[in-house]
């Protein structure tokens, strides 16, 4: 079985920390995901806001490339990219004519054979079985697992976890010794799509999530999406200003938390790149 | 052709269309004399071989009519009739029966006027089509040959 990875644009840029932690964690567990050669951007929100065909064609090229290189399973750490790829696969499967049209657009063959998995599924399948023996420093913290929108929605298409009150990340965190608190904003939107154009709205929405997590006594918010991370972490000064508060709860990628627990250094998992200082560990 | 009077047989269910046709009468609504009714308990009882038998015996057109869907006196008789009709229709079509000669309709016990309309439109259509001699000839020749062979 050949496992590929589609990092997506943000992991190469603003979410380098996430990227580093994914690869460091993979290495620690002797896994070597191969990048899909010459991958392109999935088009994210912008494409389907402005151009439906393009919003399917861009992900279709990625999937077709994966197929061409014999990839059976594609790990997609970015929840936004994950959602776009799964939705595209679903749409093309459902509408054969659309599939033909998109194949014409991208001038490539596409069958829809590769499986697309998100980072939690990947952890579940490849990390958890060997986790117990490897945990060196239990992650003894109270954490609020934040799933965001795109890991679980659209639920009928993604078919992953429960759409209300999902549990998979909570379970993963408990395996490294963390206590996942009950958290009302697990799947509320952080405002990702308006990240740059409407910072006020993003500050408001992301602020609600942070406020609730802090209020419930969480030591950290755990995320599995670079968009969520950038909104909750990089946007913190805006959030604090908007709310007129000093929120300083750190936002940690799930892969970073596991990495720390199995003995990787903060630098190895990219913690120093965060805006909000991570005092734990 | 102008003095051609088509013969039309109507197979109707007792509870809806027969009663509907009674109402046509009580309301004194007039329709063509060409249609003659045979009463069945339910359209579910109608054996579609009767259609072939009718054409062979000189019918130029046929009406099948029962309760509206979901109104069947026997709850689902008309549903089964409809299902069988769909299959049989294809078969007859395949056999070369002129399907324009057959009307399949729903007339409830309250639709006296509708029954007159169904009768009149069917008669008009069949009149247009002319006598269904082709079928009668085909079937009847066959019988006669058998008789002479004896």
């Amino acid at each position, binding site marked *: 079985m050949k496992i590929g990875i589609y990092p997506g*644009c943000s992991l190469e840029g603003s979410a380098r*920390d996430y990227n580093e932690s994914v690869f460091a964690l993979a290495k620690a567990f002797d896994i070597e995901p191969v990048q899909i050669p010459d991958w392109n951007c999935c088009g994210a929100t*912008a494409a389907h806001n402005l151009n439906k*065909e*393009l919003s399917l*064609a861009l992900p279709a090229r990625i999937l077709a490339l994966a197929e061409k290189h014999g990839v059976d399973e594609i790990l997609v750490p970015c929840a936004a990219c994950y959602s776009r790829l799964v939705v595209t696969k679903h749409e093309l499967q459902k509408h054969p004519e659309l599939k033909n049209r998109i194949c014409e657009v991208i*001038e490539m063959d596409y069958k829809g054979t590769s499986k697309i998995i998100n980072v939690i599924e990947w952890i579940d399948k490849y990390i958890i079985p060997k986790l117990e023996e490897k945990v060196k420093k239990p992650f003894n913290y109270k954490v609020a697992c934040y799933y965001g929108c795109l890991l679980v929605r659209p639920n009928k298409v993604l078919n992953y976890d429960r759409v209300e009150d999902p549990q998979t990340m909570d379970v993963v965190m408990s395996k490294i010794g963390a206590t996942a608190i009950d958290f009302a904003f697990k799947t509320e939107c952080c405002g990702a799509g308006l990240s740059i154009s409407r910072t006020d709205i993003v500050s408001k*929405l992301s602020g609600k999530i942070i406020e609730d997590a802090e209020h419930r006594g969480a030591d950290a918010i755990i995320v599995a999406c670079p968009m969520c991370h950038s909104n909750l972490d990089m946007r913190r000064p805006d959030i604090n200003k908007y709310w007129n508060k000093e929120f300083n709860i750190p936002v940690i990628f799930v892969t970073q938390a596991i990495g720390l627990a199995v003995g990787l250094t903060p630098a190895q998992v990219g913690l120093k790149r965060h*805006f909000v200082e991570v005092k734990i560990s | 052709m102008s003095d051609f009077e088509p013969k039309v047989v109507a197979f109707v269910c007792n509870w809806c269309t027969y009663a509907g046709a009674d109402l046509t009468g009580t309301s004194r609504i007039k329709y063509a004399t060409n249609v003659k009714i045979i009463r069945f308990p339910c359209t579910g009882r109608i054996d579609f071989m009767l259609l072939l038998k009718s054409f062979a015996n000189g019918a130029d057109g046929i009406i099948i009519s029962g309760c509206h869907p979901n109104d069947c006196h026997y709850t689902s008789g008309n549903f089964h009739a409809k299902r069988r009709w769909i299959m049989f229709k294809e078969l007859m079509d395949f056999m070369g029966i002129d399907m324009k000669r057959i009307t399949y309709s729903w007339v409830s016990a309250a639709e006296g006027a509708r029954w007159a309309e169904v009768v009149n439109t069917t008669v008009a259509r069949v009149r247009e089509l002319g006598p269904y001699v082709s079928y009668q000839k085909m079937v009847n020749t066959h019988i006669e040959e058998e008789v002479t062979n004896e």
Partner: protein
Amino acid sequence: MSHSDHHIERNSLAAKVEKEVEVKAQKCYQCGKCSAGCPVAEDMDFPPSMVLRMLQTELPANDEKILKSHSIWLCVTCEMCLTRCPMEIDIPSMMDYLRQKSRSEGKANPKAKNIIAFHKSFLSSIKHTGRLFELGLIIDYKRQSLNLFQDAGLAPKMISRGKLHFMPEKLKDMAHIAKIFKNTSK
């Protein structure tokens, strides 16, 4: 004959939404659950359930209001509404369609200028490099939105944390991307 066999020509926005994205506005019974859960409803001029109600009227004046609304641009496609709608009405897809329609008819709400500018900058970044070049995106967006001072503090901090590249990373097969853009531009 089924009851819905009415062959009336409809030319309303609702009819178009129905045809293009298979969202039937008439299915909405105005319960308001979408608006109750929508994270941006309070910033919208018409919350999602109101957009549906306006579509249902099939009145040209309401269609016009929708296409010119701020709401359709504020929707962040979070899918909360679809997830909870009892009638499973795909509002996010509908919003996508309305945005495209609004822009192609030149009716986009002026207040959404920045949002559109951002999406455009984003796409143009992909068009030129195949991947998102974040620094380029920010510069292009600032140019388009004339919002020069917004996020002034962000870039230096990102740079210091190695989160912004100075040079775009280009795909090898840029010609392919160009073709895809060309093939999908209507």
